[in-house]
């Protein structure tokens, strides 16, 4: 108890220095937490992917389509429960900066395969019945102020032209991680237009989504599907939804690794700054440590004092940093919704933040602790005056 009191009083001996160190650790922990969250979100799509959904695409590249005629053959593969399909549409709203994911899909099978996209039965039915209808996620609707019944015009890039849709439903995600910034519309609407304008691009899909009875069947079903189209003009590559997401994530992996390195560098930098502060503090108090040793206190006692102060300062910064993470993440989610529609800080990130703060305290305390604990009394006492 006495030592805790002593540590606390030492903590506020140089108020400005302590406050600056705490703020420094807090900012570093906050930056670390936000960067970790960003990296986590990058992989969130893959992590939340269903293990009973497979994605079949052209084995050369996703850019190359597959014939719609594959649909029935895939349906016939044992273990397959349902099949749907879609095309990446790649259009934007009014201006190129208003870009979001939009897909042409086969609605009934697709929504059956994606139960996490929650729509009222009426909205679902209205969407099914209207070939020009579309549905959007709640966040996307909020961003542009769309309401059911609104006419939405997208400008096509891959499929040039002005594309008009009637908003028939606004879905919300079953889980927080469910993507709510997507627009989905009828593949048949796209296909009909292509038949008239570019017939050679009609009756083709970008990918099939395949439901399997149970996750264990995924490898077997994948192999069965791909073997069906072996040596055809459009060979397929079937993989789990997770692997499919990961193939996108891997394209930007270098950036993610760089962000991860930066997040650790931030902690390393504050570690050095905190270590310097603690070393300075210990150097100033060498005569006090020598006095305590003279009175019979041992190296362990002094080590505890110095180490305790170092850890307490860093953990204080850590707690402030963690406390600041939530409003900062909320601010990002609201103000930068276009880039970070879902910016939720995980429990793991919070624990990592606290661990990082603790590491800063431990590492920055090592040298001063050693120095204070091993100081020769006679040498320490000479520092007086």
């Amino acid at each position, binding site marked *: 108890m006495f030592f805790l009191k002593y540590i606390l009083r030492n903590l506020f*001996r140089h108020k400005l220095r302590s406050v600056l160190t705490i703020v420094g650790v807090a900012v570093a922990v906050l930056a670390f937490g936000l960067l970790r969250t960003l990296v986590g979100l990058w992989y969130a799509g893959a992590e939340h992917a269903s293990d009973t959904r497979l994605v079949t695409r052209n084995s050369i590249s996703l850019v190359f389509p597959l014939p719609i005629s594959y649909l029935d053959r895939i349906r016939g593969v044992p273990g397959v429960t349902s099949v749907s399909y879609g095309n990446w549409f790649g259009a934007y709203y009014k201006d190129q900066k208003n870009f979001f994911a939009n897909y042409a899909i086969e609605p009934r099978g697709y929504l059956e395969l994606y139960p996490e996209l929650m729509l009222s039965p009426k909205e679902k039915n209205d969407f099914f019945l209207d070939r020009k209808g579309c549905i959007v996620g709640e966040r996307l609707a909020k961003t542009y102020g769309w309401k059911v019944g609104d006419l939405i015009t997208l400008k096509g890039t891959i499929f040039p032209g002005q594309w008009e849709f009637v908003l028939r439903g606004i879905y919300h995600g079953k889980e927080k991680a469910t993507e709510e910034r997507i627009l989905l519309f009828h593949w048949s609407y796209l296909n009909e237009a292509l038949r008239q304008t570019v017939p050679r691009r009609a009756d083709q899909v970008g990918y099939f989504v395949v439901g399997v009875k149970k996750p264990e069947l995924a490898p077997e079903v994948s192999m069965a599907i791909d073997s069906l189209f072996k040596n055809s003009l459009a060979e397929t590559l079937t993989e789990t939804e997770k692997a499919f997401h990961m193939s996108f994530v891997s394209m930007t992996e270098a950036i993610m690794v760089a962000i991860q390195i930066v997040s650790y560098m931030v902690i390393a930098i504050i570690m050095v700054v905190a270590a310097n502060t603690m070393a300075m503090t210990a150097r100033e108090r060498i005569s*006090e440590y020598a006095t305590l040793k003279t009175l019979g206190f041992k190296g362990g006692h002094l080590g505890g004092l110095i180490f305790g102060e170092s850890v307490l300062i860093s953990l204080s910064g850590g707690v402030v940093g963690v406390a600041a993470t939530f409003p900062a993440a909320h601010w990002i989610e609201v103000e930068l919704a276009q880039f970070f529609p879902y910016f939720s800080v995980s429990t793991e990130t919070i624990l990592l933040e606290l661990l990082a703060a603790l590491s800063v305290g431990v590492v920055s305390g090592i040298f001063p602790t050693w120095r204070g604990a091993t100081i020769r*009394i*006679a040498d320490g006492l000479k520092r007086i005056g």
Partner: protein
Amino acid sequence: MPEASAPIVRIRNLSKAYRRGTQVIPVLTDINFDIARGEFVALMGPSGSGKSTLLNLIAGIDSADQGSIQVGDVEITTLGESDLARWRAGSVGFIFQFYNLIPVLTAYENVELPLLLTHLSRRERSEHVEAVLNVVGLADRMDHYPSQLSGGQQQRVAIARAIVTDPEILVADEPTGDLDRASAEEILQLMDRLVREFGKTVIMVTHDPRAAEKAHLIRHLEKGELSVT
């Protein structure tokens, strides 16, 4: 002056040298010296004569190269770091030139420090601390921080801290060196009282002849060798 009795400090053939690179600088050479129980001894000498080193060796805060130092029944030159710390905590009280109080602790807490290493309860510690603060006349200042006390008062707190464990020996390194004449006189009277009333043995290093006059015995150190006055 107390009656002569078995010496509480017995120093034999004590030598100490400092090393700077390959250079060896002798500080104390073959010192032989006894201090009787209840004696007030002043160690004098010019700067660099080795008096503070001798004091540190007697107090167990520095180690000798050669020779023996027996304090009471304990040969302190053979003690390890940990045993020496324990011995110091119970047997020696320290009074420093610059008081060496912990600035973030009150007078009470500074005095209580050495007792934290004992098995005394909080209440027992409190009784001891209040008793010694009464002895030094600072019971009414126990909640003050060192910065709120004068130099003389700080030194009295330091003396209270030195005697709170009731050690046999008090070692004082220039205890009046940082004080004005009036405060220095008060401190010397207090130390004299500790010898006379409480039977403490005081070993004091000083440059000040006035301070040395209070001692029963003055020893001069000159180039690491001892002479008697």
